[in-house]
């Protein structure tokens, strides 16, 4: 069983974090929290997210799974005004999610979760750790988007850099150590990533002020952040581009 009430802003945050990678997701429900682990269709990126029951206004659940079409949740969110509380109830007999927003009730059919297995999380040894403000990152991405379709993340003992090299122009965001909340990096590391993914991920992190990045050399990046007023935690993994071939 699953029955919850949640503020529309919080539901939007949860939806954004997942929907940047997938259109449908399997929500694993437990008495204390709700979690999603999903890989995008191209298997380039992964999200691993969990939200504690404290993020909800009300939350009652047993162990279970809900297959949800995120576009439908977005449609519901478009009906909600700021501050509205949305209620979600699983109708097990009909296998539907009953959603109330304002005076509207939507009977939402669920997606079959049989084909949605939990993806494996790669075991990554990433030597560098950077904690920075999400705003800075967003500026860097904004500057890069017109220049190239990929972006290099570089960490060294003095700071963190984002570099985007196009055919004609180059954009570079420099964040020296004193502008970072934390930096752990002994040797310089650099990995290259597809900008469209990276950009969509960073844009999806709306309710977060700081972001922790774990970085290696030509290796996937791991980005960790909290949202929903510290009651939600998420990790993004993004596979790199390797140029030397």
């Amino acid at each position, binding site marked *: 069983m699953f029955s919850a009430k949640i503020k529309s802003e919080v539901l939007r945050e949860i939806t954004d974090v997942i929907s940047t990678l997938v259109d449908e997701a399997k929500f694993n429900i437990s008495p204390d929290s709700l979690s999603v682990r999903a890989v995008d269709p*191209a298997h380039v990126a*992964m999200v691993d997210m969990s939200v504690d029951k404290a993020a909800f206004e009300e939350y009652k659940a047993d162990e279970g799974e809900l297959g949800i079409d995120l576009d439908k949740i977005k449609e519901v969110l478009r009906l909600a005004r700021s501050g509205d509380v949305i209620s979600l109830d699983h109708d097990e007999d009909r296998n539907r999610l009953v959603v109330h927003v304002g005076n509207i009730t939507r009977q939402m059919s669920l997606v079959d979760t049989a084909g949605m297995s939990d993806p*494996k*999380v*790669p075991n990554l040894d990433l030597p560098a750790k950077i904690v920075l403000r999400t705003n800075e990152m967003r500026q860097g991405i904004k500057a890069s988007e017109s220049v190239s*379709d990929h972006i290099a993340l570089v960490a060294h003992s003095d700071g963190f850099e984002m570099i985007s090299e196009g055919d004609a122009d180059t954009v570079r965001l420099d964040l020296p150590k004193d502008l970072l909340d934390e930096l752990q990096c002994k040797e310089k590391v650099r990995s290259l990533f597809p900008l469209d993914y990276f950009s969509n991920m960073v844009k999806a992190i709306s309710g977060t002020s700081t972001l922790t990045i774990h970085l290696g050399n030509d290796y996937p990046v791991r980005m960790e952040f909290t949202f929903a007023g510290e009651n939600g935690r998420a990790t993004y993994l993004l596979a790199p581009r390797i140029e030397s071939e």
Partner: protein
Amino acid sequence: MVFNWISPHDESIRGVGGGMCVACKASKRLCGKPRCPLLVRYHSLLKTVSLVSLHMAGSSPPGFFAGRFGYPKLNIGPLVPPFYGNTALLDHPEEWLNFSIDDIVGFRSQLVRGLHRVNVAEARDGGKLVGRLQELAIAASPSDVELDFMKRPRGNIVFRDNVQPYGPSAPLRRMEAGTLSVHRDLERVWYDGDLRAHDALLWLYTEGVEVSRISRALSAGILGLQAKRKFVPTRWSITAVDDAIGKHLVQKAKGFPLINEFRVYESWKLDNRFMILLVPRSWIYELVEAWYPGSTWNPTGRRIAMFADWEGYRGRTTYAAIGGCYYAARLAIAEALCGEGRQAGALVLREAHPGYILPVGVWNVRENVRRAMREPYREFTDLSGALHYIAERLEISLKQWMGKSRLLRYLQTQRVLEDYPGVGG
């Protein structure tokens, strides 16, 4: 006298290179094409034109054409050859791949086009002539018609990239048709004024109606909600149908498991060489075209001109700059994937060689790719093996394809998460 039939304002002639043709007179091959495209057109026109006067009778394949100039007013009309018989082949691109360019130009130049000026909205209630034309457009088989023209049909054969060429034309005064045997499925959607055009064309496709018939029906304004029906210029209708059906099939293919290997398919017809690479990745698609100097759309260039357009898993939201070919090839690939019940990423490489002297329509791309996908494929365990083979089969070097192909660069450089050892799950 000879040039009565070929207007000096014909854009396709100017496209070949203005004064160059005068200096050459089909004897010096100044444009670099193996044969003079003007003569190919001219000879096939002569045959038709001598048979046509103010009154004409023949069997329409059936054929229907809607021009696009002046939209929302446009010229609609029948395509009819000046003779009776089984003329189905003349407007049936699904069968044309095994003919030469000369044959195809021959088929098309026999089709005289009647012109009837209408507003697109007249598709709803355009009176007797419009009704007869719509009926003809959905006829199941060649239909005998008699045409009266305002003046004697004349003009050039017109060639456009998307549209099959057709012959002389003249304003239509009257069309008489015997009892037409209409296509059952097309008739059904014609009478269903509550069925949206999009749903109608998908339904027709799943019923097995050929794409050329569906686009003719869309063009003739017989699909869609009764109050919204419109004539659609033929060239728009072809790509609209390729796009809508292709999108539908791609969506379906996304539900199927990935192929297990790298595959290479090929087809080489009308001096167009197509190589198709399928990769074991989720849906992603790109078409890269290379036009040789002397081929249709690169008549005066000295270098090979290359163009590319692509889409990721979630498709695209803007019209592909490459045009109708993009959608025609995508349809053919999605069709093959759905037929097999598999999903893959697809790259289509096209070399249009100089022997492709005249544009014959996007059906060339659709049918070439379909043909490739029907033939046995070569199987490879990795990308480099597949690319190596493709490089052998094409003239243009891999390096040049790579320079244009975003998808190739993506496949070569982008890692996936499975490349890294995992835990959990």
